[in-house]
């Protein structure tokens, strides 16, 4: 057995991360909690179940948002185990058609959502834009680039329209994921980038953890990978943002992006930027910081779109229940998904776009 799959033997009768399991929470169904998914997978391996519509529905319900592992005292890599089992399923030709076609799109275009445009410029600093940022949320990318310019940096946008390997890996196609990861590294090396800022936590997670753990790929040692939000938080004094006048209490809630639980260092940085951009501390969701739930922006949008939509709706409901009139988030992937699903009059604003409006006129 692939060693990482061994995690299901630990998780199959463990209920200790149920309280933060996002899919269990929205469906109220034991079967799609970490325990349930691991149990179904473990029983399939023991010959008690076979892969069919019912059991595959369970296997593909795991969102790969990292909540279970972030709360696991013994650090069980359950999402990686599930990805590895999906790879076996795909190898056996049993993957559902929607999964296959999402994979084929990435394998052909390097992008699930549009096109990939490799960078041609060179520089020391780069911004990894990613697939969704480039193809579906350009205004966030533009805002980020302008803020970086205001910091005095000349930044090369890279990975424009390029999937970092996260989606194919999570869908169960490690070879394609491997190729995508290699492409990311090649582009960064080709452009001479030594300091790589990353716009989306999804790509940051891929670079900092997933490539090594699931694909056995190590990034070149001379490339430093930096969360854009951490970098901008450190630059607040240089940016000299002008706070909005007269705000004492905010009606904007900060949504921790998908994968935030995997990158806990960013919780405070994001909030400090919100405070500067909004004029006071943002409203906090119930599902925040180390218990933040993902929106349906992971591979779940292809594997179980019904659940993906509910995950996003649940974030919007959380904000409404907290009395928020608007939502603010830094991640283009999360922002795009929230905008797509919002049926209320909620204003969904990009954090970097909001920060841009606070820049002094000639910076």
């Amino acid at each position: 057995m692939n060693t990482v799959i061994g995690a299901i033997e630990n998780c199959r009768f463990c209920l200790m991360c149920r309280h933060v399991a996002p899919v269990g929470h929205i469906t109220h169904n034991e079967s799609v909690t970490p325990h349930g998914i691991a149990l179904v997978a473990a029983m399939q391996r023991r010959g008690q179940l076979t892969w069919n519509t019912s059991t595959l529905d369970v296997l593909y319900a795991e969102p790969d948002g990292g909540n279970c592992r972030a709360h696991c005292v013994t650090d069980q890599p359950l999402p990686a185990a599930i990805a590895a089992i999906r790879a076996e399923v795909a190898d056996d030709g049993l993957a559902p058609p929607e999964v296959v076609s999402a994979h084929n799109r990435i394998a052909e275009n390097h992008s699930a959502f549009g096109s990939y445009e490799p960078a041609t410029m060179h520089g020391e600093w780069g911004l990894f834009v990613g697939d969704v940022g480039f193809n579906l949320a350009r205004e966030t990318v533009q805002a980020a680039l302008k803020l970086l310019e205001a910091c005095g940096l000349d930044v090369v946008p890279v990975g424009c329209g390029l999937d970092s390997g996260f989606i194919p890996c999570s869908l169960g196609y490690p070879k394609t994921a491997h190729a995508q990861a290699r492409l990311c590294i090649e582009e960064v090396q080709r452009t001479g980038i030594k300091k790589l800022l990353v716009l989306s936590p999804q790509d940051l997670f891929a670079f900092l953890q997933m490539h090594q753990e699931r694909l056995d790929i190590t990034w070149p040692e001379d490339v430093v990978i930096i969360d854009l939000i951490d970098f901008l938080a450190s630059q607040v004094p240089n940016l000299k943002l002008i706070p909005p006048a007269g705000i004492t209490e905010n009606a904007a809630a900060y949504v921790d992006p998908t994968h935030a639980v995997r990158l806990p260092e960013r919780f405070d940085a994001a909030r400090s930027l919100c405070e500067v951009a909004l004029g006071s501390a943002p409203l906090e969701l119930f599902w925040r910081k180390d218990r933040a739930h993902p929106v349906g922006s992971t591979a779940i949008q292809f594997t179980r779109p019904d659940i993906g939509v509910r995950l996003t709706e649940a974030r919007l409901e959380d904000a409404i229940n907290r009395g928020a009139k608007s939502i603010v988030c830094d991640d283009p992937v999360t922002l795009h998904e929230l905008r797509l699903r919002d049926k209320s009059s909620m204003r969904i604003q990009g954090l970097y776009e909001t920060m841009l409006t606070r820049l002094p006129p000639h910076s």
Partner: protein
Amino acid sequence: MEWTGLQPEMVRSELTEIAGDAHVSTDEADRLVYATDWFWLPQMWLDRGEAPRKPDYIVRPKSAEEISAILQVANSYRIPVIPWGGGSGSQGGALPVFGGIVLDTKRMNRIVEIDEKSLTVTAEAGINGKQLEWAVNEKGLMLPHYPASANCATLGGYLAPRGTGTISTKYGKAEDLVLRMQVVLPDGHILRTPIVPQHAAGPDFYRLFLGSEGTFGVITEATMQLDYLPECRLLRAVLFEDLTDAIEAGRQIMTRRLEPFVIRLYDPRSTASRVKKILGYELEGAYMVLGFDGDKDIATLQEEKAMDIINGFGARDLGREPGEAWWNQRYDFYYPPQSLKLPWMYGTTETVTTYDKIEKLYFAEKKAVEEGYREWDIDFIGHFSHWFHWGVMVYTRFIIRNPPDDAKEAVRLHNRVWNTAMTAVLENGGMVNEHHGVGLKLSRFMRRQYGDAWPLLDRIKKSLDPNGIMNPGKVGFGR
């Protein structure tokens, strides 16, 4: 035998009519997952490739009214109904031993009201324990039922088997914290118990639903007592050479009403194994963690007085750090692979009795289990963790690291060990259980436990549930 054909489809259509298609499942994967709770036997059974008894339907109702309608359907078809909260019960209480409808309450997870004046929370029974705790914490409050399973258990699951949490020694068991409940009776009648539990307006009938584990009805909502989050928590650990001295010290602290929120006393075997494994301390003797909370000056004084008692027994003060480490890591014991795990055989034979009997009971059970199953190299460990003014609970565990491979043989050995342990408990004046409940596991001991009083319970059951639909096979009630 699988239930197939027209009739199951008829039932399904009625259930769907009530709860909606999305909330009624007969899926193969769902039926397997709901075939086992946290009881060792069904887990082992599944793990060794044996087919479990699965529910025929899993229904996730949204309200007491929906549950009422579901119970009426179940009565008309004479189908078992098994309430299911988090499925974290260790006694097989939520197992569908005769098939039927598993009624998963987790969709009923609303907080109805937090009353910051009376310090109460009213919530639907399917709410997750930790999520409820987070919600009241936001108001500076806590629900002082802190079970190790708060991450996975529900409010209804706290109450139905009469659970006990880590800080019960000061704040009480789950049942002591409930003011009021809404319950759906087996015939579908929905009732609310009186607004407060302490009164003199007639008998205390609400207690019937605490400990009946879904055999007398479904708890759909409860109002629970809250407390302020304490200003401080003072923890420290001490080491006794002798278990007898340690129990006596605990008794004196309790009977002098010094109000510790926790006294966790590990027997020497547990000190050498569990405390070493999880906390990393290599110690010989009986390890005790002691905690006081609330206003700092009061807690400090209580701790001082308790330490006077402890010092009188010549125990070694290990200081704050090991007490705090225990508090911070107290639930780490439950994460695999640190938790007890298959293929081992294990069981928690926790019991409670008065101070005059507890030590004798503990040693009698230990001797019976250790001597009776020596050829299996059985390990018997324990700790004393829920202390009352009159007695204490001992949480004892047996572990067999090389149980039989054959599932049926394993069942027989498992049940023999339980028979031995429970016989020792009953013969020495103990209760077969203190907080995990009875479920399927201890069902067969209920008549012996209650003796003359059993027929009364049996009569209540028959009058409330004449068709025997509610959780059959549990708590001593047959089909």
